[in-house]
């Protein structure tokens, strides 16, 4: 809006030099507390800018400095270097203490996403209390994902970009140990062999035996 018309005219023909673009990206990232997407950067920058390239250069420039350029999901942010956290006692935010159940539920959602409530209960071997999911939703660390294409089309849960930002992850694939867990088959949703599933404990044994078996041969 405050751009001079002549300037705008010019940018139709030529984007600003890369050094200048880097400055722009730097200014925008510094000013924002939230991660900014490449798309958002480019709508703010003059026409023809290559924000992605400017970001790569900026990230390099800040390597080893007191603040770093980090990627969160599909957005970028500046964050202080973790080794300097001890200087920031004044800024430290007390995060709500999560219960063991909430922490485990969060980890299961992160590693198994998209995951249904029933699957979480199957993994933990106990029912998930309403408060737990509610708390994680409220913290905006999880959200509803798409429905599962299984009978009843249950809703699923996935982690959010706020979650990634909080734990310093670029994306959910960077979760520690994810590859190893997958290789070990521990992220599979393996159906119980026939009769008995821990999730269905309350049901009648005989009924389970029959229904379970047919399930066995279905797939």
């Amino acid at each position, binding site marked *: 809006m405050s751009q001079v018309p002549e300037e705008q005219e010019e940018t139709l023909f030529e984007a600003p030099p890369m050094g200048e673009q880097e400055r722009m990206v730097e200014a925008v990232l510094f000013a924002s507390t939230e991660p900014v997407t490449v798309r958002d950067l480019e709508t703010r920058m003059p026409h023809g800018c290559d924000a992605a390239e400017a970001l790569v250069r900026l990230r390099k420039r800040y390597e080893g400095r007191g603040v770093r350029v980090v990627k969160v999901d599909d957005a970028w942010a500046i964050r202080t270097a973790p080794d300097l956290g001890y200087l920031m006692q004044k800024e430290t*935010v007390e995060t709500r203490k999560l219960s063991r159940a909430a922490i*485990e539920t969060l*980890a299961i959602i992160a*590693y198994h996403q998209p995951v249904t409530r029933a699957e979480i209960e199957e*993994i933990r071997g106990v029912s998930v209390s309403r408060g737990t999911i509610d708390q994680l939703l409220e913290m*905006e660390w999880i959200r509803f994902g798409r429905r599962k294409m299984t009978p009843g089309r249950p809703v699923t849960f996935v982690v959010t970009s706020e979650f990634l930002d*909080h734990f310093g992850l670029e994306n959910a694939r960077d*979760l520690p*140990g994810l590859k190893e867990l997958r290789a070990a088959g521990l992220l599979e949703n393996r159906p119980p062999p026939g009769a008995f599933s821990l999730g269905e404990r*309350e049901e009648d044994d005989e009924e389970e035996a029959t229904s379970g078996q047919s399930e066995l041969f279905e797939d």
Partner: protein
Amino acid sequence: MAENIFQEDTVSVAERLAAEALIVDVDGFEGPLDVLLMLSRTQKVDLRKISVLQLARQYLAFVEKAKQLRLELAADYLVMAAWLAFLKSRLLLPPDPTEDGPSGEELAAHLAFQLERLQAMRDAAARLMARDRLGRDFFARGQSEDVTRIRTVKYTATLLDLMQGYARIRTRDEFRPFVMDRHNVFTMEQALERMRPIMGYATDWADILSFLPEGWETDPVRRRSATAATFAASLELVKEGHMEIRQSETFAPIQIRKRTD
């Protein structure tokens, strides 16, 4: 068959002691699977090589001990005990070819898988929580900048708002359509309609009360509504740049006039 199980059922002293230790803290466990995971640690082997048979014995000893101490165990602990007893018999007896269903080995393998998976998730959770975290180990910008005065209002809502909103409507105990008696209400739109054609003549400061419509000045209810509407309409006209408004002090008359520039 019963005899067979009975003979196999001798539990070592160590297992009895382990069971006793668990009993003390049964409230600290999150259910049977949690207890089983705890018990499996006493085997000191890789969870993949765990002896489910031994585990079943340990668990049954734990439940037995609880019974001796006349402790109330939650139902799911007992259901698990029943299932483990069943599993144990399956593991000990030669497979019956006439019987359908999964073999004892398959069931045992699945239980071992569940334990390993739960343990893996606990480890993952611990690693996750030990990561450098925003607001504790690394920090976002403390002061976002406010450089221009152009302020656009962007309305937003979260999915949670949306769902709570919907839930609110669908669970409303009863809804009564709200009917308002509009007889004595003068709306801002009406006030605007009234003021627009005459404001051009208001070149001098004039009390907004002089703009009240005929027949609305005396009845207190009507007067209040008309005053509020006229005031709101005046603000609207000021916002549009057609008029100026002033008030010398609190509760003093509010005056308006046509904007001259």
